[in-house]
């Protein structure tokens, strides 16, 4: 740049004129830029606008989801959404308790051979896949028995790397051999799905026969799992690896919009065959209004909308504004919601808000990757970490004392829960013992222990506080710890690829049998299977295999308790808490009956539009 001093008068005049032009140009530039900004700001987000009489369910998801492919997902957030799009053969009755399996895509319950090895399942006629570009003329075709066979073979395909393979591992005749065959294929697309699997046959379009290697009493509950929902081969071929973003199921809703970081919108599927609201339930259901819609066709809602909100404050405020139908109680708002007697506060009652509490069959933990060279061979270190965590303080700080401490891995509401598990002392807070164990751990390690890393599946304030809590507890006994916060898809990827040292997670049962919790420690089910700890103990494995073929009985429960003690002794995880769900919903949100195992329940929810409209007026009077 060159600096030039202007001195002459004519030059000054020219300059002034020039100045005015430049000023105009700059002003025009400024206006254009602001205008462009406003145009961008004015762009509509292309979402459906809610009509006054349209029934829309407004829900919140507290984490992003990776994909909507039932064959390869296990996280609860994906399952919540996918369960409205896909359907398995069976489902749990919405109202009846104890929980009872009823047919969904199956015509009736399976016919089981005397030797308990052959299941014959009749498929409903007139079930159609949702309309999609993958089908000719974009019209969904009818569901056939072969679709179930394809979906199970797909899970067995090793190139597909399904997290759900462990469910079927060594169970169905010929399926393991099919998996072996896929190893020699070059890619997922090269697998020949017409290859016969002896244990999966379809004598006609509406009959599926499953032949088992050995008795598997849990098969019916597995066939109620979203993992077994049929996927159309046309969709898999058409979308390839993008299938995770293009779900094509048979369920009551189909995907309309999915903005990955923002929201998911499902709309009622025009090709849905129709289903009816249950006409019977358990005693008290009629009085509670759960049978008001008995026999009516479902779904009631036109659209289901999930907004992804990772921070608690906006989710809570949206609920209070009536823009979300139901929510859990954020820890920071607990006193605003509940009084000392366990009732809703007058302010909540004034909002016509209802509270539903139920024992969720779930367990949460700080898990250790047993393949990690530092943790895996150092039991005193793992035990020291477990003893260093003050679980009661954790529950007080993060759950307002609502949840029980997890003394073991089986939740208290399961029939196989061990009532004496607390006395075993595995979940005791004992920092002195932890320090003693650490000395032993250092000897095994051969020197000072390195900094340990804990992965947390969220980046919200809650997770950061949780990370700080764990760090403080472990620092207090002399352990150096780093916390890594990541979004749910990244976390899952890292856990599934065994790339994490310690991780915080939890699991909910998918059936009244506690097998889900024990499967997490069976060595054949290592990550990406349910055994994210990559734990291995031959004694445990032997007992697990024995229990797998047993019918539900006190002997089986006893076996479960024995297995639980083996796990607690080896300490592949520090179990933290079980969950008692406290769910708030508005009075217009009908048919909200808590269910421990089912997720595809949006079809039963109904909105009382008059009450929802009236809430806006109510809010004005309250404010």
């Amino acid at each position, binding site marked *: *740049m060159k*600096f030039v001093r*202007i001195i002459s008068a004519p030059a000054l005049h020219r300059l002034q004129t020039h100045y005015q032009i430049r000023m105009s140009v700059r002003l025009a530039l400024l206006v254009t830029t602001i205008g462009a900004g406003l145009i961008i700001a004015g762009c509509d*987000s292309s979402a459906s*606008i809610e009509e006054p009489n349209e029934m829309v369910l407004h829900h919140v998801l507290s984490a992003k989801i990776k994909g909507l492919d039932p064959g390869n997902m296990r996280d609860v957030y994906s399952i919540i959404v996918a369960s409205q799009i896909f359907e398995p053969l069976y489902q749990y009755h919405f109202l009846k308790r104890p929980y009872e399996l009823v047919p969904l895509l199956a015509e009736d319950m399976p016919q089981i051979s005397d030797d308990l090895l052959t299941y014959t399942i009749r498929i409903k006629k007139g079930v159609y896949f949702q309309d999609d570009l993958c089908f000719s003329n974009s019209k969904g075709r009818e569901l056939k028995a072969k679709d179930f066979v394809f979906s199970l073979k797909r899970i067995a395909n090793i190139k597909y790397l399904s997290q759900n393979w462990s469910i079927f591992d060594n169970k169905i005749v010929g399926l393991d051999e099919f998996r072996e065959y896929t190893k020699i294929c070059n890619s997922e697309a090269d697998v020949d799905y017409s290859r016969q699997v002896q244990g999966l046959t379809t004598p006609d379009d509406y009959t599926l026969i499953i032949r088992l290697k050995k008795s598997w009493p849990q098969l019916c509950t597995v066939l109620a799992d979203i993992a077994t929902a049929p996927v159309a081969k046309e969709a898999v071929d058409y979308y390839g690896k993008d299938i995770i973003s293009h779900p094509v199921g048979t369920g009551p809703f189909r995907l309309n919009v999915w903005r990955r970081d923002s929201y998911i919108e499902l709309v009622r599927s025009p090709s849905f065959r129709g289903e009816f609201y249950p006409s019977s339930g358990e005693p008290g259901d009629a009085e509670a209004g759960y049978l008001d819609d008995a026999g009516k066709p479902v779904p009631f809602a036109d659209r289901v909308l999930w907004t992804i909100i990772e921070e608690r404050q*906006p989710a809570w405020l949206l609920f209070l*504004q009536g823009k979300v139908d139901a929510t859990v109680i954020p820890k920071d708002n607990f006193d605003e919601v509940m009084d000392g007697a366990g009732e809703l506060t007058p302010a909540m009652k004034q909002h016509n808000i209802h509270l539903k509490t139920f024992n969720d069959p779930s367990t949460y933990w700080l898990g250790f990757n047993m393949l990690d060279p530092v943790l895996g061979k150092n039991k005193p270190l793992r035990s020291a970490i477990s003893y260093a965590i003050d679980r009661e303080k954790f529950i007080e700080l993060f759950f307002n004392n609502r949840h029980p401490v997890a003394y073991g891995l089986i939740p208290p509401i399961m029939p196989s829960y061990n009532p004496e598990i607390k006395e075993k002392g595995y979940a005791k807070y004992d920092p002195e013992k932890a320090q003693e164990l650490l000395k032993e751990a250092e000897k095994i390690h051969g020197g000072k222990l390195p900094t340990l890393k804990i992965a947390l599946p969220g980046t919200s304030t809650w997770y950061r506080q949780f990370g700080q809590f764990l760090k403080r507890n472990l620092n207090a006994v002399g352990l150096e710890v780093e916390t890594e916060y990541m979004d749910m*898809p990244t976390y899952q990827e890292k856990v599934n690829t065994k790339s994490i040292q310690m991780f915080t997670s939890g699991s909910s049962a998918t059936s009244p049998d506690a097998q889900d919790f024990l499967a997490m420690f069976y060595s054949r089910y290592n*990550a990406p299977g349910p055994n994210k700890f990559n734990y291995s103990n031959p004694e445990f494995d032997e007992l697990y295999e024995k229990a797998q073929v047993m019918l539900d009985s006190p002997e089986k429960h006893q076996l479960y308790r024995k297995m639980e003690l083996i796990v607690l002794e080896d300490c592949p995880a520090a179990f933290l808490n079980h969950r008692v769900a406290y769910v708030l919903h508005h009075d217009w949100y009908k048919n909200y009956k808590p269910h421990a195992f089912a997720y595809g329940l949006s079809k039963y929810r109904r909105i009382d539009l008059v009450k929802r409209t009236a809430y806006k007026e109510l809010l004005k009077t309250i404010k």
Partner: protein
Amino acid sequence: MTTYIISRLLYTIPIVFGVLLLTFVLFNLVGGDISVEIAGKDATQETIDEIREEYGLNKPLFFSLDSQFANHFKNALTFDFGRARDRELVINKIKRGIGPSLALTVPIFFGVVIISVSLSLVVAFVRGTIWDILAVVICVAGMSIPYLSFILFGQYFLAYKWGLFPVFFSPDLSLARNVALPVLIGITAGLGRNLRFFRTVMLDEMRNDYVRTAFAKGLKTRRVLFKHVLKNAMIPIITRVVSAIPFLFLGSLLLERFFGIPGLGYLMVEAIGSRDYFVISAMTYISALLFVVFNLITDICYSLVDPRISLE
């Protein structure tokens, strides 16, 4: 000037090449094998090979027309950044996020600049009075309050209590309505720091002889301030303002997160958290490109606002 602009544009070629080389070296050489990172610790060689094949990591690094660097260079120039780790095309992620991000940051940027420059002129004019002291106190307070507090306060009172704005992003509303409150919060939170800076700039300018002369000649205050003082104070203003423009592209993490704005701030932070090299690399490249372009614009602006500066 045209020659200058052309020559500066030519300079951008080695700069862009350097940025591409740097990101390539950082992510492909210093950062270790991405395919191993993606496949995980316990992956088989077969899985790793598949990933290497998919991302073209089995090709030579340099010195070939089909080398990894040549492809990196070619893809960057055509804005074809490939797929992110969640399988989505990186360019689609950026395209989707850029609108909401700019809808948020552009109004905040102009709001802050226009208001703080205008106020700084007024405050500088009334320097030493109670209004000046009050403005400085408010500025310092505004700078001291955490950004998050502005967000929580605004969200609770303006959106929830008084119902003036949506609490959170709603697809049923236009983007303009969705970003209105975050923009307001962004402007309010940014005013303190900027007003204080521009006040200092203006005060320096107000002390010059020509201002006293202008007033002595009987010019109106408004004319002196907005025509003469503002013009002469433009150099530091432009330096600060134009150099901030490329960063608008990166969005605003906290505002995006608390108001659910699906922008690029969120995308970048999540990509860093999940070690998504493909997204990070693309965002770094675009940021660098914008930075170079806006640096050039800054220089051009200098010559436009100050006749003593000519570009050669």
